[in-house]
């Protein structure tokens, strides 16, 4: 394992649009606003942007469209699509490109108008090519894949719907501390249990919300970051892994590729789960949080249900997880991964307001893509972690 990327780059700027209903905005407009906001935060003019990373479902030429729109001519362009994990995986690409001298200022950005499009046109943005030998049975994508994983985890380990409800309730409790979060009304386990089933064993309250939003981060070398206005948030480790595309080809529905992406990130960072202060996991569905807690070593395999019980991942619990409220209660713009990075950065800048984890020095993000198909793990630290 090459450890040379550890601490070589840092996030120097972050930018967000409003979340929720932005019916007058295109996806590209939301992306551009977030980029402008992130560059302003970083104190860098857009003329310095020489690497552009983006991705979304409907736009095949996403990087070209964004570069043209912003009026930049980057040396490095990347609009890989591996699902919502992509932006975390682009930290790996961007850090390697900066380290190799291919670029100096990398922007990772996304924007979506998925909620407005659904309301106005009845269309849910999704990948155009799904999974042959699965689609013909008309699974309810994408939650069907996650429902199958939840059912198997329940069968193998005795996980219950109440355990999953704990995850939804914890996310909501964090969202109540985040003024940007969309769903902030109190939520009880009983309410989650009583919600209509959408794909057994998952109910509507086990599923993320659908929102319009834009988000962007600016990544520069650690040396450059130290001369910029914000406290640098250093990238200590990053790892990417995949086991399958379609859920029928996943080797074990109770074990995700985050075992591998996590190991790669931990190895690069020289850290373990015990040293992580704050955790952001891609919670498109409640089962995700449970699987990733196990796979990333926060609890043994099969014990996720007990681990999340009694508010252990809620405010005041043993491990702060999805402190922004997550995809379940804060925001989910079709592909959520960039929001994980932004929450980690806010926590490590000690700028997370009421939801701030006191003294947070190490943050872990785990992005998920497709149907539990791709996993990308990143570990960030403050200057004390170098």
């Amino acid at each position: 394992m090459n450890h040379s990327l550890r601490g070589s780059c840092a996030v120097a700027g972050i930018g967000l649009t409003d979340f929720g209903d932005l019916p007058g905005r295109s996806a590209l407009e939301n992306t551009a606003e977030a980029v402008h906001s992130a560059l302003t935060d970083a104190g860098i003019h857009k003329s310095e942007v020489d690497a552009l990373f983006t991705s979304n479902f409907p736009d095949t030429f996403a990087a070209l469209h964004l570069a043209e729109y912003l009026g930049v001519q980057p040396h490095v362009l990347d609009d890989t699509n591996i699902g919502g994990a992509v932006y975390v995986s682009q930290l790996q690409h961007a850090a390697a490109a900066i380290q190799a001298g291919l670029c100096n200022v990398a922007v990772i950005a996304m924007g979506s108008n998925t909620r407005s499009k659904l309301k106005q046109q009845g269309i849910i943005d999704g990948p155009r090519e799904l999974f042959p030998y699965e689609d013909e049975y008309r699974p309810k994508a994408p939650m069907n894949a996650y429902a199958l994983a939840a059912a198997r985890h329940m069968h193998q380990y005795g996980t219950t719907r109440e355990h999953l409800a704990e995850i939804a309730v914890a996310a909501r409790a964090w969202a109540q501390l985040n003024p940007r979060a969309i769903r902030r009304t109190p939520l009880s386990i009983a309410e989650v249990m009583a919600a209509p089933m959408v794909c057994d064993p998952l109910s509507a309250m086990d599923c993320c919300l659908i929102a319009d939003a834009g988000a962007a981060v600016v990544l520069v070398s650690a040396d450059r970051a130290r001369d910029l206005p914000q406290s640098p948030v250093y990238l200590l480790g990053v790892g990417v892994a995949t086991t399958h595309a379609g859920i029928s080809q996943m080797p074990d529905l109770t074990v995700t590729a985050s075992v591998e992406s996590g190991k790669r990130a931990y190895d690069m960072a020289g850290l373990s789960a015990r040293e992580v202060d704050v955790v952001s996991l891609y919670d498109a569905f409640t089962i995700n949080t449970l699987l990733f807690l196990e796979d990333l070593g926060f609890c043994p395999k099969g014990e996720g249900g007990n681990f999340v019980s009694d508010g252990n991942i809620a405010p005041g619990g043993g491990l702060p997880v999805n402190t922004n409220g997550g995809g379940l209660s804060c925001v989910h713009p079709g592909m959520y991964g960039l929001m994980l990075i932004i929450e980690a950065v806010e926590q490590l800048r000690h700028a997370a307001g009421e939801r701030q984890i006191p003294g947070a020095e190490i943050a872990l993000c785990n992005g998920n893509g497709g149907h539990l198909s791709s996993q990308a793990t990143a570990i960030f630290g403050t200057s004390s972690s170098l």
Partner: protein
Amino acid sequence: MTNQSQSHDQEQAKQPAQMDVGPEKKFRQYLSEGSFHLQRCDQCRQHVFYPRLLCPHCGSMQLTWVPASGRATVYSTSVPRSGGSSYNIALVDLEEGPRMMTRVVDVAPEDVTIGMPVTAFIGTIEPNGEPLVLFRPISGDDS
């Protein structure tokens, strides 16, 4: 220019006779004839589904079609619901090894359980639909 377009025309003309039927089309042909076939790798002897040009286990291009036993066990199961209707979506482990998505039918969707033995048949999930591999529980009489 003229030569090029002539040779292009000749290629076009030759195509139908020489058309190589890939594994995906071949699988669909078997289905339309009412049979469920898998591939087996000549090299590593493992069965392969879904149909491929190369073995995902060992990389060999030597795959042979074999009839599937049709016997399988439910690995996981779910009940998608919309507008008052519901159906079953399951993953089943074929006796030969591979796993596939399917629907288990002839039983209430929520009564399909993990570990349930099932057997394959070729059917459709809508009128005039394409033939698909579906499964039904193995009754006492079948087993």
